[in-house]
């Protein structure tokens, strides 16, 4: 009799808990929102000084181990070699760690090709005469997760070189 009561109690508890467990899947814990930030937020378009300044993107809330691609949105009228009108241009990338944090630095090649729109000589070395910095201003930055499809945005401001006294 005792054991029968025990079984009934366990079964009752299970019947009570199972719907709760089932319902909990309908309301999953909200995923952390993906974020992106850039340091520094303002960059001087000075050559070659820009090559010495690390421009680093960091973010949280990404899917662990996913690749995060950082693109810069080109305003209408800003043309760039290798980029079709309307396309964004990749400037950094990084892999999210186990906790969903990522870090990606703008490589020198992106600073030259994208921020300075540099051309090359016939022997394929950088031609300083072709330095053509993008117009100063605030540019939208889009970070996107390759697996999750998550998207986060920030801005990066480019300022004209400050004349030296």
């Amino acid at each position: 009799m005792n054991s029968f009561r025990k079984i009934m109690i366990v079964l009752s508890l299970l019947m009570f808990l199972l719907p709760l467990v089932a319902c909990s899947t309908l309301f999953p814990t909200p995923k952390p929102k993906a974020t992106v930030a850039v340091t520094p937020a303002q960059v001087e378009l000075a050559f070659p000084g820009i090559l010495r300044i690390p421009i680093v993107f960091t973010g949280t809330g990404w899917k662990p181990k996913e690749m995060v691609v950082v693109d810069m949105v080109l305003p209408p009228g800003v043309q760039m070699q290798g980029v079709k009108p309307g396309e964004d241009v990749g400037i950094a990338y990084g892999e999210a760690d186990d906790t969903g944090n990522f870090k990606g630095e703008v490589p020198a090649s992106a600073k030259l090709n994208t921020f300075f729109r540099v051309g090359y000589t016939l022997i394929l070395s950088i031609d300083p005469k072709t330095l053509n910095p993008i117009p100063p201003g605030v540019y939208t930055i889009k970070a996107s997760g390759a697996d999750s499809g998550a998207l986060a945005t920030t801005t990066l401001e480019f300022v004209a070189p400050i004349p030296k006294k």
Partner: protein
Amino acid sequence: MMRRILCGVIILTFLFVIGVMSSYAQKEVAYLSLADYTDGIAGLNVPADMGCEDYIKDLNSRGGVDGVKIKFIGVDTRYDVARGVSAYKRYRTEPKLLLINAIGTPIGKAVAPLSTKDKLITLVPGDGEFQANLGRIFAWGPTYQDAFAATVDWLLADWKKKGKTGIPKLGFISWDSAYGREPLRGGKEYAEKMGVAMAPPEFFPQGSLDHTVYLSRLAKAEVNYIFVGGVDPTPTNVIRDAHKLGLTKTIQFFCDYWGPTSLGTRLHPEALEGVVMGSYYLRGDDARKHPLANLWTKYGRGKLEDMNEVYTIGMAWAMTLEAALKIALKEVGYKKLDGEVIYQTYQKLTGVQRAGLQGPCAYSPTSRRGSLEIKFYQVRAGKVVSVSDWIKSPDAVSLHKF
């Protein structure tokens, strides 16, 4: 009643037209080239992609592979990894995308995890890493370290032929990049194994205008041979600087796959005289006299004597895909054709010939090498001439811990 019959006829006609249209819709697969058309490796990438695109055009004009045409998508990444990754992300959802050619070792390494997750295959220049860790990444030919090892064998034979005694000393100079360091990941171990001493390697930033500092250090280390990496015109410029320093009189210079082409040798014939290059593809007149070189003129690229021999590499990429498509379409048909099928099929291409443009295909379940053989060429009187048959390159990948 009449209205109902009319409606029925209209619906049936509509369904028939849809059915016929879809069965006649163009069957197409996509090939994505993450290329460099305007930056440091453009000198070779532009003609190579011309070769690929022209071969595909020609193939498509003949009806494609069993009616399936190939769409060539070329993106100018400017040899910039961030742009390469971004471009891959943009085109990864292209309908029937089967293959990505990551032109540039650093781009290949960055894109590999993404394309692997997407179950697509990626071609890369010569990373031994992808032979050591088998996956969906395939090299164009023998790996860089294998080719370096073959050069070590050539060097030892040369040392013996010249009647020299003692241990030859080898210098290494290349770009400070993943590509620049790759040949030594297994190649260094091979040199040590074969009794060749190596001076500390020299790495310089891509785009350097002057290389005399690095070369002077190698000269001071009393090397007998120097292996020069970098994509032409870099090797041409390095050897030009070595010539200015008088080093080419006493030191034998080698280059890898991307050493001076015939066009480069026209600029500095005196400096480049005697330089030896290990190549997995045909060079010089071997390339220009090949029957497929006629595509260069057929598609309006200019005079045949101006054809850069890397044009043939691009044709070989396309021919490999053509061979894989033939097998895959026979086995699963167009509808089921996807990245996974192409991955399985590339592993069945062992022994496939590409009209002799390079050695037989060596892809298999245990090999990601595009071929195993290299051929040695030498600059003689301003021309790139063949000085060996196809030689099977040693396995240097297995000597390194990746």
